[in-house]
């Protein structure tokens, strides 16, 4: 029981991170119907920007943890969002309106490019960061097994909740969110009514990249290491989360992220550590076969 609780806590933490990445996938898919394969690598870039920002701030003497974290959060989001914007501008915008496969191939190319770009610039080895927030609360002690809730885990889940609330307000209350939903429903009609479609799509990428940057930062702080290849697997798992929750649905992405995090952690904890990636892929395949609209998604009607 205690072991299960501990796994649940860990799974929830990991799931929050997957959820943050999954929002980027789900929003982009919702608005232009493409799988942004490079999104996982944008997350990786966010992690690298965070580790560099940590070190530069350390050199500058800003070591008070809350201030440093705030600075890194803002800087990391800004720089990563710029990467997201440029990727959209360079690799996807020229392909709008061409066949469906072209943007996907372009995205795969972009993913390979970003991985090797970071590998060349920062080296292929793991980059380690000493723990910034350590320690935790002992929730309970059952039969010699202490269930621990790390401060880092509280920070991650809290940050995710705050971001989710802010993001939901942004989509439902602001004019930007309204434009975005309009584009999602009917891009041509929105354009005719004066919505700047290109700008809205670009901002979608910017927001997705910003959330991926937060995920990269907390990933780095939670695991303490990052390498140039981390975006591949994390990206696929987050995409699975988006599909599981129902692609195009924001609460679905978060729910899917948490479910994937739980499946991943529980599988590794109870069955076998080797096959936990297989479990995620199997979930992806099963969801797509039996419920392609996901848990919270709307059915897609194909018009002739």
């Amino acid at each position: 029981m205690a072991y299960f609780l501990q796994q649940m806590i860990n799974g929830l933490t990991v799931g929050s991170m997957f959820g943050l990445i999954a929002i980027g996938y789900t929003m982009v898919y919702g608005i232009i119907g493409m799988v942004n394969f490079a999104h996982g690598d944008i997350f990786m870039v966010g992690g690298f920007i965070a580790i560099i920002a940590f070190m530069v701030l350390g050199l500058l003497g800003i070591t008070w943890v809350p201030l440093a974290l705030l600075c890194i959060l803002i800087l990391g989001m800004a720089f990563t969002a710029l990467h997201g914007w440029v990727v959209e501008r360079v690799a996807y915008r020229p392909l709008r309106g061409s066949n469906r496969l072209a943007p996907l191939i372009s995205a795969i190319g972009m993913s390979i490019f970003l991985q090797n770009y970071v590998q060349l610039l920062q080296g292929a080895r793991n980059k380690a960061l000493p723990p910034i927030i350590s320690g935790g609360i002992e929730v309970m002690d059952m039969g010699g097994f202490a269930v621990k809730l790390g401060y880092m885990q509280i920070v991650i889940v809290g940050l995710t909740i705050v971001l989710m609330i802010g993001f939901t307000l942004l989509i439902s209350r602001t004019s930007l969110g309204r434009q975005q939903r309009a584009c999602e429903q009917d891009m041509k009609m929105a354009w005719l009514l004066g919505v700047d479609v290109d700008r809205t799509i670009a901002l979608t990428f910017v927001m997705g990249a910003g959330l991926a940057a937060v995920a990269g930062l907390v990933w780095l702080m939670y695991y303490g290491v990052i390498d140039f290849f981390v975006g591949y697997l994390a990206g696929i798992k987050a995409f699975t989360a988006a599909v599981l929750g129902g692609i195009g649905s924001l609460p679905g992405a978060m729910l899917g992220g948490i479910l994937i995090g739980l499946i991943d952690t529980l599988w590794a904890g109870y069955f076998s550590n080797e096959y936990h990636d297989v479990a995620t892929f199997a979930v992806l395949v099963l969801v797509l076969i039996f419920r392609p609209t996901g848990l919270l998604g709307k059915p897609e009607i194909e018009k002739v």
Partner: protein
Amino acid sequence: MAEATVNTSAAPAAATGARAHEPSFVYLVKDALATGAIALALAFPLVGFRTVDRGSTTIIETRFGQMFLGVAVIALGRFAFSLIDAGYARAILAGSGVLSVAWLLLVAVDPGGAAIFPLGWMSWMLVVSVALRAAYVSWGDRSEARGDAVSPGDRVAATVQRLAVFFGPVLLLFAIAMPLLPMADQRWVDLGILVLTYVMLGWGLNVVVGLAGLLDLGYVAFYAVGAYSYAIIAKTFGLNFWEALPMAGGLAAMFGVLLGFPVLRLRGDYLAIVTLGFGEIVRVVLLNWNELSNGPKGIGEIPRPSFFGMPFTPAPPQGVTSFHQWFSAHLWEIGFSPIQRAVYLYYIILLLALLTNIFTLRIRKLPIGRAWEALREDEIACRALGINPTNTKLTAFAIGAMFGGFAGSFFATRQGFISPESFNFIESAIILAIVVLGGMGSQIGVVIASIVLIGGPEWFRDLESYRMLAFGGLMVLIMIWRPQGLLAFREPTILLKPKAGPP
């Protein structure tokens, strides 16, 4: 990047078309500066700082000099590109052409002399790409002035396709004669084998992606199944290459049906992601199922192919004639040389690749092949016409998987050792890139793309670390330039206003 071209899903993508008339010079400078500013912001965290491992700790170094040079290169490039678009293509072409030739001469005279150019190859690449772009645009302007209906890229594609009728046999003759040419040493034959392996994989995947229009990101799974099937069958039952090959191909095809059956109802990019997932599952299973695949250590001592039972060994066991002994006894005297096996392997893969090609060419004429292509164009119309989409897709998937399995068996017998490391996602991406960049559905395009993507990097061994970077960048650029692929061109059968068509 202040162009305000509005593209909705309905409007055609203005990739090269929209050219600003009457551009003001000030605007172009501002535009280049803005691009430079964006590049600076992009480069600042990742290029400006470098994390370095010192013992157990990580420290940080700066390299702002390189960063500013890189940013300057990008801003200049942007300026040159917008000048080209503004109608100065000829002048830019002349200037950049002279510069790139001068650079080459400088390097040829004194390899160290290239250092006077900042960032060496980077600035050279900028000059060359500016020259290429200028040439392309000025060519496009000329053909536009003549009133041609098709863009220069389409014209090249159409020309290559017409020439393929003559070019193909010439290429084939060269491929057959290559190992016998005097310059063919071990390195050439090995390179030929490598390129031909990818040609075969490309042709196999072309059935799935090019003909049936199913995007398969996990093709390497079938390659892996073929390789492991061959290794296990050959080692366990002691069968030789030609006996085990059909079994491995059959197993891979069965695997294709098994994987394909549940997922082929899915649409384009969902299918792509699920196949990617299957590719990863196969790799992870091979990595962990120690009893079957020997895990990460891989399988070694896989039997090498023999020439009608005659092995390629210097000293065969009692009662067995090796190839060079037989050859010496019946034709003329030769000694043992390892290149004999390489040449034999080369002909095996050439044969297998040609088999794939002929099979594909023939099956395109059969009802099933026509159904594949029809399905690629419009699935709903096909369903209305009574084609069973699932079965049709399944055959394409299975046949593609079978050729992947053949190629995998060949890989196993050539290497003599296989491990899950050889079958990762990047391998799938490379095979897919060969098919897509060559132009989906184009057989000759696959050959050209393999020579460029696989053979090319072999010449640039020094730039090994930049290889994959350039590979990814090239995928993006080619997609933007020609979303249909380099050599995909179909003449419109009906024109609303008949114009002077391509020559």
